[in-house]
């Protein structure tokens, strides 16, 4: 079964069988990552461009490593060192890169929907590596892979996503991916950081942390940004931490073997205590490793790898 699309722009429109295919492929990629020489020739001669309009360390490095392990040629473009600072439009930038023969664009942009716009402009595959407050599908997939590894299933699990839901593209991708795979998703956060008409989304909504994580199998802790306090969305980091910070005591409300995730980078002592971050419940570094595996799978599947799978 191949994928049904040219691009991966979000998990909202992706079918459950596609998610299964990506996760299965990622699991087999983990095997490659465990080898002493981590290099396969699968994507030799394919050209991948990472186009990051917004700073990122882990996502960009993760995609670059994934592409390199698969032997693709990778070029990295960011606003600081390109004609983007000279005022070139996104349309012209991608047309230029497409003309150079890019097979895939990995796009991060501060504007929601920018990858959709790029996808409409180029025949190459476009992978959304995070757009504004919209989606971050590869993060959603690596979160699912991490949960699947730990729990053996996604169906029937209770997953709480805690923090700044409004501005979180991770929360949206997790919501779509996990609910499609049969999990129950809860959004937990201060009412000022829950998005408009959140009650119309396929999630349960809580503004009390302990109620929100009660009996949960997984908690995904989101990063809180100081900028939100400046916009008047909560009074202080201190108060946020006291109401929504994940500590050892708070964690008792969840299941004893609860898995604690964080998309990083963590603010230790603010949304999560160091004790929890370093505990056995936390899987933050596993998420990072799984991120490389998921992105290898995405490069493979979106660069025509599905045909190889079918032939094999």
């Amino acid at each position, binding site marked *: 079964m191949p994928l049904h699309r040219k691009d991966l722009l979000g998990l909202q429109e992706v079918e459950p069988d596609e998610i299964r295919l990506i996760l299965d492929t990622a699991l087999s990629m983990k095997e490659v990552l465990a080898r002493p020489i981590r290099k396969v020739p699968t994507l030799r001669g394919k050209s991948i461009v990472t186009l990051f309009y917004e700073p990122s360390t882990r996502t960009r490095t993760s995609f670059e490593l994934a592409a390199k392990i698969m032997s693709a040629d990778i070029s990295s473009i960011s606003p600081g060192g390109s004609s983007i600072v000279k005022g070139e*439009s996104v349309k012209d930038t991608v047309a230029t890169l497409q003309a150079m023969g890019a097979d895939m664009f990995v796009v991060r942009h501060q504007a929601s*929907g920018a990858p959709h716009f790029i996808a409409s402009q180029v025949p190459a595959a476009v992978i959304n590596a995070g757009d504004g407050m*919209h989606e971050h599908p590869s993060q959603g997939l690596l979160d699912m892979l991490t949960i699947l590894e730990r729990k053996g299933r996604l169906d029937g699990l209770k997953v709480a996503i805690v923090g700044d839901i409004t501005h979180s593209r991770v929360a*949206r991708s997790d919501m779509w991916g996990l609910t499609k795979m049969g999990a129950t998703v809860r959004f937990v956060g201060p009412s000022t950081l829950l998005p408009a008409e*959140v009650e119309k*989304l396929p999630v349960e909504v809580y503004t009390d942390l302990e109620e929100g994580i009660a009996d949960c199998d997984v908690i995904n802790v989101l990063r809180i940004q100081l900028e939100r306090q400046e916009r008047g969305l909560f009074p202080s980091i201190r108060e946020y931490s006291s109401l929504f910070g994940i500590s050892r005591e708070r964690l008792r409300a969840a299941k004893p073997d609860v898995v604690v995730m964080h998309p990083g980078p963590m603010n230790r002592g603010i949304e999560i205590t160091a004790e929890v971050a370093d505990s056995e419940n936390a899987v933050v570094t596993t998420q990072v490793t799984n991120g490389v595996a998921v992105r290898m799978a995405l490069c493979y599947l979106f660069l025509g790898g599905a045909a190889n799978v079918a032939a094999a």
Partner: protein
Amino acid sequence: MWLLLKGGRIVDPASGLDETGDLLIVDGKIAGAGKDTDGAGETLDVSGMVVVPGLIDMHVHLREPGFEHKETIATGSRAAAAGGFTAIAPMPNTKPAIDNRAMVEFILSTAVKDSDIRILPVGAMTKGMDGKEMAEIGEMVAAGATAVSDDAFPIANSDLMRRIMEYCRMFDLPILTHCEDKVLAADGVMNEGVVSTLLGLRGMPCAAEEIMVARNITLAAMARSRLHVQHVSCAGSVEVVRQAKRRGINVTCETCPQYFSLTDEAVYGYNTNAKMNPPLRTAADVEAIKQGLAEGVIDAIATDHAPHAPEDKEVEYNAAAFGTVGLETALPLVITNLVDTGVLSLSDAIAKMTINPASILKVEGGSLKEGAWADVTVIDPLADFTVKASELKSKSKNTAFDGMALKGAVVATIYNGSIVHGGETLRESKARATAGVK
């Protein structure tokens, strides 16, 4: 010179007329029955067509001066004529803004030279439209400004708004207001709701519109001035205006076809042509707008025709300009979504595009009474067509209605007794009839 429109359904809301008959135009004026048709003239068979007063759009953007790559007075007037409009009121947010006598004179003199139809200039309320200092409104009125507006740059300072309203009372001048609390709407790019949540786009809540509608009504009541609320898009705003009218406050309002034809779901896929301000709202708002139109709470239908160049729209959604063109789709949208669905009678719908805007702006036109200016629009109410952006006459093709199947088409637009758009099909059918060809 005479022109006889023969056998059409004549709908003239101003005189309550809706009957089949002939309309005679002599020397640029509507002539009474039995007038002389000797000498040079022409008869057009308009049987099966609807003959209405030339449409009046009290809210357009023509972009001249300053943004002539988007639209000019010439191209905008041709798009308007193609849409059945014989008079349009361009907003003052040009570059420079229409904020003094010389600028009003520029618009009027360019119109004489370039426009196929009547241009009703609207002046800015404040100098440079910066919301700080009152513009020379009296001078602009003397030069021929029809109204003043703060469109696109709502005036946040309530004291300044009060003084402008009081000042305009001297001239009994219509005050057209774009109602938006810019602080509350923040950097929103679409309606705030579940769709903005799913798309991860910043929302502009309806409250931002409703608050300013309420404030402006309160101030106008105190200042005893006229007030016209532009492009009403929210259910709450309709309710605020309804209450004000019940209290006898001198307020009128308009909506635009987009606000009774589309919802915020049109933004899905990050469709920049569906990005506008006020933004497309929800299905419940659309229903309330229709209800407001049916009850007469909403007096007029304008287009807020907002042309933008491809480079303003072929960008990331956040970076795209606000607005949709609308002159050439307004009447078919009214027929398809209001008349055919029974929200408004044809006569009531036409009133909101003719005599009502004429009364609000206190201009001549909008009527087919004997002696009136011969501004007339001929409509084929049954014509089916699909909107094609590329076929629009407007210099800009940014329509939110591309691909929409609509009913009702403008067959001919007559301005001052001359056909300024169409007429060919009428003449062709007449030629065919004469030649005995089916």
